[in-house]
């Protein structure tokens, strides 16, 4: 068990949970279960962030992903009445094809790291993930993308409204839900 002696036990456990939950996300037939598993995955990833000295990121991840995005997903699922095992099972052929493709991707990518060399520039690793440092970088070096991401949000907002708003002659959303 020399492999595990070098690994922190926390990393092992978290990775295990992450992968397990992720697998459940893609295999669960009930979309709601998928969402819940995904939230769990996000939680475990947040834990990873903590391990990686990215404390602020861990919090934001929980707030944005687990808190906001996933709730949105859940809400839509409920809205559309998809909280049952509605999805027809794909043929085995698809499963095989998908596994092979994903597996190949995995193999090819991981295979390439046998000779990976990575640049290292040692800084003070303990403080980089703190909000103080991040805020400084965001407001100096990343100011332009930060401001321009405003365009993204306004565009996304307008877009969501455009798609979601009721046209005069369109069918009622409520009526659909009743069916």
């Amino acid at each position: 068990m020399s492999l595990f002696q070098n690994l922190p036990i926390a990393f092992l456990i978290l990775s295990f949970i992450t992968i397990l939950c992720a697998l459940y996300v893609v295999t669960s037939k009930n979309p709601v279960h998928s969402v819940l598993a995904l939230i769990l995955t996000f939680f475990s990833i947040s834990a990873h962030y903590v391990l990686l000295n990215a404390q602020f990121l861990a919090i934001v991840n929980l707030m944005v992903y687990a808190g906001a995005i996933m709730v949105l997903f859940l809400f839509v699922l409920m809205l559309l009445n998809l909280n049952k095992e509605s999805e027809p099972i794909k043929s085995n052929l698809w499963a095989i094809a998908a596994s092979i493709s994903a597996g190949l991707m995995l193999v090819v990518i991981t295979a390439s790291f046998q000779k990976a060399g990575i640049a290292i520039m040692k800084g003070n690793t303990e403080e980089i993930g703190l909000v103080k440092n991040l805020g400084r970088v965001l407001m100096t070096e990343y100011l332009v993308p930060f401001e321009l991401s405003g365009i993204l949000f306004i565009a996304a907002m307008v877009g969501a409204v455009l798609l979601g708003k009721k046209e005069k002659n369109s069918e009622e959303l409520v009526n659909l839900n009743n069916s």
Partner: protein
Amino acid sequence: MLSIFQNLDISHYIYLSCVLFSIGLFGVLFRRNAIVLLMCIELMLNAVNLLLAAFTEYMGDPNANGQMFVFFIMVVAAAEAAVGLAIIVMVYRNTRKTDVSFLDSLKD
């Protein structure tokens, strides 16, 4: 707090991220429900996020470029999720389905 990389190699995180990414990829290929597809894509994005955070920590990047990128990915993911869900809802309104495999009327 000490860096986790004192007794762990970066490649472990790379492998973990790649596995997560591939699981997401598998989900994208395997699932037919548009919402679940979207979730799988979110999973892929998160794998990337994890990788970026790990790289930042491993390299000790004082500007935390990787982590900054993660923020932007989150921003975009949120926007994407909003728009994507709006599209799915719209499609559901018209077809009462969220199953992408039925959407094949556009073809050669």
